[in-house]
């Protein structure tokens, strides 16, 4: 049967339904387990093999040796495509994906992340101003 | 006899190719290298005589001294015949196949733009895929081409920058 207003019932039902909208940003949205967000660098585990640098499709990681068995990682968040290939490539699990996706910045230079080698604690993450 | 072997046999018998020229890579994949003089004849036979009615695409390759063109023809049963032919890089002249496949025009334009092939008989039309104003004689897919060759040549006049 061809008729106008076929969707009438559907729209009226949804009027009385709860909207399908999520309340982000008022309510945080949880990412799935496998989500690939910002990459975290665990400086204590890195051995400096630079396999991650070799495989990164955008060359946005720079691992530099800053001392004896101490390495510093620099990420260009504005260039990373969050593919987590570096995580797969790293033989020592010194890199991991986090669920952090709220990365927007108003200045581009704030998108450079430097994970310092020192002091040793794992989340020595601090964006430079 | 499998399909691929049938294709191989037919081509061998009809055109007297040597067995090295034809390679059955796997199920449904046949590669054939044809000298340029013979190409049109083989191509026409493949299309009209062997029912390869669909042109998947044309790949252009830069092999150093020659440019190679691979015409990928497909048949409804899934078999794909890749016909390769070579022309010297110095005078890369091809004859169009757009009379057989009007849809192939766009692939030929691509060859002309990216590899600098001269396709004879190709109807006038917009270039593809390079932008208007792209400098003549620059063909990105040639191995000796470097992106630096564009510097200062294209784009010609920069719009005033805000950044």
């Amino acid at each position, binding site marked *: 049967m061809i008729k106008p207003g076929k*969707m009438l019932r559907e*729209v009226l039902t949804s*009027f009385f339904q709860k*909207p*399908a909208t999520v309340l982000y940003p008022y309510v945080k949205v949880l990412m799935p387990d496998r989500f690939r967000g910002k990459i975290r660098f665990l400086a204590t585990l890195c051995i400096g093999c630079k396999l991650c640098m070799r495989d990164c499709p955008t060359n946005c990681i720079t691992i530099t040796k800053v001392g004896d068995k101490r390495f510093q990682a620099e990420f260009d968040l504005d260039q990373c495509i969050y593919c987590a290939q570096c995580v797969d490539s790293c033989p020592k699990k010194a890199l991991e994906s986090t669920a952090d996706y709220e990365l927007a910045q108003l200045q581009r230079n704030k998108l450079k992340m430097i994970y310092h080698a020192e002091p040793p604690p794992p989340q020595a993450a601090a964006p430079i101003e | 006899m499998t399909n691929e072997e049938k294709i191989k046999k037919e081509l061998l018998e009809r055109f007297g190719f040597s067995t090295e020229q034809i390679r059955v890579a796997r199920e449904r994949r046949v590669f054939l290298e044809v000298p340029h003089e013979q190409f049109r004849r083989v191509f026409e036979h493949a299309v009209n005589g062997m029912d390869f009615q669909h042109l998947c695409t044309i790949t252009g390759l830069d092999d150093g001294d020659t440019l190679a063109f691979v015409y990928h023809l497909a048949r409804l049963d899934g078999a794909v015949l890749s016909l390769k032919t070579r022309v010297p890089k110095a005078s890369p002249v091809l004859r169009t196949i757009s009379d057989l496949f009007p849809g192939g025009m766009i692939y030929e334009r691509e060859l002309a733009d990216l590899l600098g092939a001269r396709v004879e008989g190709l109807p006038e039309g917009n270039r593809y895929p390079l932008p208007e104003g792209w400098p003549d004689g620059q063909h990105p897919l040639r191995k000796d081409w470097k992106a630096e060759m564009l510097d200062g040549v294209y784009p010609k006049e920069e719009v005033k920058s805000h950044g």
Partner: protein
Amino acid sequence: MAWSLFNLLIFPGFLFLFVFGLAMEFVDRKLYARLQNRIGPPWFQPFADFVKLAAKEDIIPEEADSVMFRLMPAFALASVVTAFFYIPLWSTQSLFSFNGDLIVVIYLLTIPTLTFFLAGWHSTSLFSMIGATRTLTQLFAYEVPLFMAILAPALLAGTWSLSEMTVFYDQHPAYAAFNIIGLIVSLIALQGKLERVPFDIPEAETEIVGGTFTEYSGRFLAMFRIAIDIEAVVGASLIAAVFLPFGLGLGAAWGFVFYLVKVLAVIALLALLRTVLARLRIEQMVIFCWRIVAPAALFQLLINLILSGVLRP
């Protein structure tokens, strides 16, 4: 003097219309969103849009006819506001009235459409011009049915004055039931007048960007938008006055409530219409209007002619 100035500017004049128009735009958008199962804009959204646009830079394209370009939004706004004064709202009395004001109102309501056309035409951008021609084409299609549909009740009432019409229907409320076809026709025509789906052909952004208003920005765009909002209110009020003349004799307070309910109902119906339908092509729209809507309106006219002969010898 001071009173009528108050009437003109504040209530039920311009300011009231402004607020009411914005409120109805909100109702429309919110309803549209909710029918699509999403949250939709907050209540102040139309107002924020208006203020923002008003405070924005307005660019007049070089090729455009700058006088016409500036004048048209004001024209559109003025005509719809004027039309409003002739419509009886919550009593049988409108602000101004004379015998024949029905015709004037209908004409006044045509002016905004014409200004859209002129605005589009004088922007001299390709898309605005296509939008403008489509506006005009469409106008011819829905205007005649609208005329007929609205004249039919007048015929039955035997007067060309809106106020007298409402008086008539107030006395014989049952007669309003005869006008049901006219009500449907005029709802459809109003949807066309407001250029909304399925008749948003002149503004179809997937085809011709912003249509008539492609080149407009800032203040002038704000003015057009508010004019359209007010046009919706005025159109709804007209339909309410002509086809739903109920509750007018109950005094100002109740009358006002009834009036709000009626206008809301019309706006809600229009919102529903645009939710469930796809945009027509211009020629489909014209065919639809001439093949179905116009005959229906004509039919209504005939019925009322016969009825007025039978009922009011």
